[in-house]
């Protein structure tokens, strides 16, 4: 947890020597607290103070990276319990489980499918993150082979699942050159597992059995054995128990600054789920409620796409709304005589308007103006959605050449712009549409 200016002041020499460039130690402390100065500017600071301040500035939830080739999954470093308090920073990695009892061909084809899955949404690429390979055979040979096969086929970030440290070592050899997550250290095997993860410089998951004190103790043991990058599995499988455990871990890390649980978590969404839909529901809960890694047992585009969309939604920064690119959007294959509507490039505004036109089943042209990602009224009030900007959008997009009429529909909320816009766009007829997107279908029905 960050220290206050006064707390930092008490740790400084308090000599007001000005060597740091600030008039007093207190002024310097305030700058440090605001992260506008570096402690190294003080030549007389003690080693003890240095250590304390460094520890205090470490993030309450450690950033963990799993990577292979040019793909990287960063999770952790979260600072809030609710996204409206600031934002969630690192979206959970979505992994798909295979077992080393499956054929090499199966493992390879799944690896290729997961690696090749890519779809764009609101201008952003959506993709799954990696494979989780489970040592279901209980033997080292098949496990290492499956890892080698997956590595060769997809070079995806991996989670290696085995409780046998010797098997894990064999698999880690095959994954060399990558940074997999080693899953998992338990009460029984943690010494050997920590040694294996430490040797491979890989992050290590620790698995509990429902008791958070035991889980934290296990994490401390592993840390004592030299593994710094840790992931927590509280070992719950029911929906509400997982929710409670992950909520408690997040609270302990953020509100009590409890270092022993200051790590990201892993959730097996398919565990105990009786159907792919039940698995998706568990994964959705994990996305919204605090998971760092999510492991699925089914691979189906129809399940993955909604989950990736949800992940995109939840991890959107509430202070920085997603924008859509300004330009012309064609809805329901418009013809030259179809209506032309104008709106702003705030994603929610765009989706509301585009959704209504689309839902009405009527073809239309949607001219999206660059209003710096603001909604119609906000942008209008801020001067980012005025006659000049709309006229500019009409001219630069060349929409006039695509349609056979010169009628432009303004959002009802900015009806006041119509006079000015008629001056900016000579020869155009400016019409005032509905105030609310929901009234667009009715409006389009009578549009001529």
């Amino acid at each position: 947890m960050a220290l206050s200016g006064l707390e930092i002041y008490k740790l400084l020499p308090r000599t007001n020597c000005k060597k740091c460039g600030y008039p007093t130690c207190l002024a310097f402390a305030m700058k440090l607290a605001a992260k506008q100065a570096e402690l190294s500017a003080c030549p007389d600071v003690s080693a003890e103070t240095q250590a304390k301040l460094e520890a205090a500035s470490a993030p309450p939830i450690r950033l963990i990276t799993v990577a292979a080739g040019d793909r990287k999954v960063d999770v952790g470093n979260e600072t809030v319990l609710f996204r409206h308090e600031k934002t969630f920073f690192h979206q959970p990695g979505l992994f798909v489980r295979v077992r080393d009892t499956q054929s090499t061909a199966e493992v390879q084809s799944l690896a290729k499918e997961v690696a090749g899955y890519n779809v764009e949404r609101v201008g952003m690429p959506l993709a799954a993150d990696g494979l989780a390979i489970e040592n279901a055979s209980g033997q080292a040979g098949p496990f290492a082979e499956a890892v080698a096969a997956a590595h060769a086929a997809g070079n995806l970030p991996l989670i290696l699942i085995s409780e046998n440290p010797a098997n894990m070592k064999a698999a880690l050899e095959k994954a060399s050159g990558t940074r997999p997550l080693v899953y998992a250290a338990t009460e029984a095997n943690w010494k050997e597992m920590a040694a294996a993860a430490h040797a491979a410089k890989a992050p290590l998951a620790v698995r509990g059995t429902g008791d958070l004190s035991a889980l934290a103790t296990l994490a401390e043991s592993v840390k004592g054995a030299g593994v710094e990058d840790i992931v927590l599995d509280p070992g719950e499988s029911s929906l509400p128990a997982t929710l409670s455990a992950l909520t408690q871990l997040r609270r302990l890390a953020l509100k009590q600054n409890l270092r022993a649980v200051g790590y990201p978590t892993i959730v097996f969404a398919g565990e105990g789920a009786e159907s792919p839909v039940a698995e998706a529901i568990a994964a959705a809960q994990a996305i919204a409620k605090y998971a760092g890694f999510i492991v699925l047992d089914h691979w189906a585009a129809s399940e993955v796409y909604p989950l990736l969309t949800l992940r995109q939604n939840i991890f959107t920064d509430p202070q920085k709304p997603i924008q859509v690119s300004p330009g012309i959007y064609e809805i329901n294959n418009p013809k030259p005589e179809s209506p032309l509507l104008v709106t702003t490039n705030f994603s929610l505004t765009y989706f509301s308007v585009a959704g209504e036109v689309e839902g009405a089943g009527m073809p239309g042209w949607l001219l999206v103006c660059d209003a710096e990602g603001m909604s119609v009224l906000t942008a209008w009030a801020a001067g980012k959605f005025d006659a000049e900007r709309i006229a500019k959008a009409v001219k630069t997009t060349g929409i006039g050449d695509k349609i056979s009429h010169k009628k432009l529909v303004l959002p009802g909320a900015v009806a006041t712009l119509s006079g000015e816009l008629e001056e900016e766009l000579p020869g155009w007829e400016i019409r005032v549409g509905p105030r609310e997107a929901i009234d667009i279908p009715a409006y389009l029905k009578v549009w001529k």
Partner: protein
Amino acid sequence: MPVTIATPKEKWTGRVREVTLGATAAEGGTRRQKVVVGGEGTLPFLHFEAPAPHRPVIAVEVQDRYPADWSPLLLEAWGDVLESPTAWAAKAEALGADLIALSLKSASPEGGNTGSAEAQATVRAVLEAVGLPLIVYGPGQAEKDNEVLVAAAEAAKGERIALGNCEDKNYRTIVAAALAHGQLVIARTPIDVNLAKQLNILIGDMRLDPDRILMDPTTGALGYGLEYTYSVMERLRLAALTGDSMTQMPMICTVGEEAWRAKEAKVNTGVPAAWGDWHERSVLWEVLTATTLIEAGADIVVLRHPESVAHVRQAIDRLMAG
């Protein structure tokens, strides 16, 4: 070195109100059972902090005319019953709905422009056809909403139905109808904490018992503003739990309507292969919108697809266990 952790519990000072939908014969109505929602003393499903007294419930949307604008997947799933609101409601009841959300779409000026007489007849017929409590929605156009909701309130006197939507432009009429006939209102505001509070205050000023108000924060479907609804609901629920009485009404989300409006659910032509199987994707679109909002505090979700009803019910069962 062993670490000992005390369970980190929050001390909440507020609680969500309990709202009862429907009245049985003993209470002056004709419902086979009533449904109580709300009463939460903690965030959704944190059973270690406080027990959840009532489960979130599922309302199934029923319209009073054939929903020709619906996705073919929905039309196929329901079949012939879509021609008759009573048959449709009865099938919804058989599928395990907790509530029927009757939408008087035929009253819309573009869709038949039916009036108060038709609205009363439909409401009476549906009340007769099922034993579940009722939510009645107008067509979504202020003038017609006033006309048919007032009529519905009168026709269902004593049944404790919920009238939707009650918005800033028409709340006086709807609240007056609820007061006159002992019904509830659904106070709907556009994804904003302060607007939601303000409308609850205005409704309270008309002396409608706060135990007769449900809040609809306006639903954004998955991919279409879900995160806005999600965060506004979390903020409303946190405010309720920290003692703000004007946010302590149970919340209702019109999930089916919004999810099935999404392109991902509605159509399957010219969409990327990466979207996957249409049917599975569409049902999941509705299911994940529902469960995500239930985990943000929704007490009632209004759904459309029969399979979604089954999946969401199962999820609620699992969330309430333990």
